[in-house]
Structures are given as C-alpha cells and as structure tokens.
C-alpha cells in the first residue's frame, strides 16, 4: 500500500481548472480553426487531469478508464476536425471561423 507523496489532489485540480480555462480562452479567442482544435485538446486534457486526480483520491480505477475513453474520443474528434479543415482548404475557403458561416440559416 502506498500513500500519495507530494501535493494534495486539490493542487492537481487547480492545474486542471487553469488548463480548462486556458483552452476555453483559446477556443473563444482564436479564429484559425487549427488553433481552435489545439485549444480543444487542452480543454480535454484538463478534464483528463481532473479524472485521474479523483481516481487517485478515491483509489478507484474507473477514472483512469474514463480518461482513456476521453483520449479515444479526442483522437476521433481530431480526425474529423482535421478532415474538415483539409476539405475546406481544398475548396479554397478562407480558414477563419468567423467567416465560415455558409451553413447559417
């Protein structure tokens, strides 16, 4: 049986919250869809850090399983997002999320 060395879980949760807020700032602020996708990855990783922190805090492996599932979903999201970016680039559409309003009703 091993105890948790170093900082308490709340420190990890603070880092996770800051990461999530940083990613949200990037998603809202940036106009390049590639950087929006990168910021989305930061948000997902902030969530993953909180999941793994709580998993360690409660001594339950379910949080790590959830984090691995989130990782798979993030990989899928990157595949679809980058496919869309490449398709838009082939159609010579400006890569600017403020101008991608063709589907607006």
């Amino acid at each position: 049986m091993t105890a948790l060395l170093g900082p308490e879980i709340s420190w990890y949760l603070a880092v996770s919250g800051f990461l999530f807020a940083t990613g949200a700032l990037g998603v809202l602020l940036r106009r390049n869809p590639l950087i929006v996708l990168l910021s989305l990855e930061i948000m997902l990783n902030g969530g993953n850090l909180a999941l793994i922190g709580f998993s360690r805090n409660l001594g339950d492996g379910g949080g790590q399983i959830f984090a691995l599932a989130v990782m798979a979903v993030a990989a899928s999201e990157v595949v679809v997002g980058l496919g869309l970016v490449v398709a838009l680039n082939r159609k010579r559409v400006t890569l600017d999320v403020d101008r991608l309003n063709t589907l607006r009703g």
Partner: protein
Amino acid sequence: MLIASAGNVLVWIVWIVAAFACLGSGIAVVSFSNPFYSALALIGNLGSLAVLYLLLNAEFVAAAQVLVYAGAVMVMFLFVIAYIGPRTESPWMGGPSWQAAGAVLAAGALLVEIVVVIGLKASGHLAHSEHVDRTFGTPAYIGRLFLTDHLLAFEITSIVLLVAAIGGVILGAHSRRSPEEVPSL
C-alpha cells in the same frame, strides 16, 4: 521517516516543474500566432501532463498519453499544418475588441465556476487520499478493469474509433474528386 520526507520534497519539486511547464505551454498554445509553434507547445503540454499522471500512479495512462497524443495525434496535426501552409494570425489583432473582451470574461467565469464548485462539493475529502496497491494504474490493472467492469466502455470506444476512421476517409476522399471526373448523366 527521513527517507519518506526526502521523497516528498522530490515529488514536490517534480510537481512544481511539471505544473508550471504545463500551464506555460498551455498559454503558449493559445498565444502563438503561428499554428506550427502552437502545435509544438502542445506537445510540451502533453509531455508535462504525462509527468503529472505518473505522480498520480497512472502509469498506463501516462504511457498512452505520450504514445497516442504526443505521438500519433500531434504528428497528424503537424502534417496538416504543413499541408495547408502556416497562416499566421495574431490573437490580439486590431486592439481590444468586444469579442476578445467577451472571450476573456467567459474563460474567467469558467475558471471561477470550476474553483467554486470543486471547493464547495469536493473539498471535504480532498485532503486525505486513499492508500492504493502497488498494482494501481499498471497495464495489467487497467486491462483487467477494461475487460471486466468496463467492457461496455471498451466496446463503445472501438465503435467510436471505427466511425471516426470512416468519417475521416469520407471527408478526405470526397473533396479530392474534381467535377470533371463525375460521370455525367
């Protein structure tokens, strides 16, 4: 006791370095104007997160993080950025606009919300962490959980990955076809 406290100090030092690298590279991803540099900063972010996962006894997740994220996903990102060409865009272009101010306000509100909710709901048991076995977080432990208690999550994950792979192929193949290749009726 002395050895235990020396280990504690060492873990604190590693934690501080990893956490600051993590937050710094996260801010760098958001503020670099060139998406290539942003992607490189995100690789640093993912690496320092893997160190934090190791400190939390999540060895398998840390290894998967480095292999899947920093390896596969980021290589795909760098390929796409190289393919469509680096397009620089300054995040603070044209002075303070209402959009940038709204973004900063919304992100700050999210941060406050996270801190308040975790502080109110979870602060009671955060100070004391459970003692765990030495096997906690090892590949054998994760594999046993995946194939017993969480089998449904495992299978759904495989379907999600399959659907994403098919979607990627369709998105990539559809736009390659030029109009003249379409057989006319």
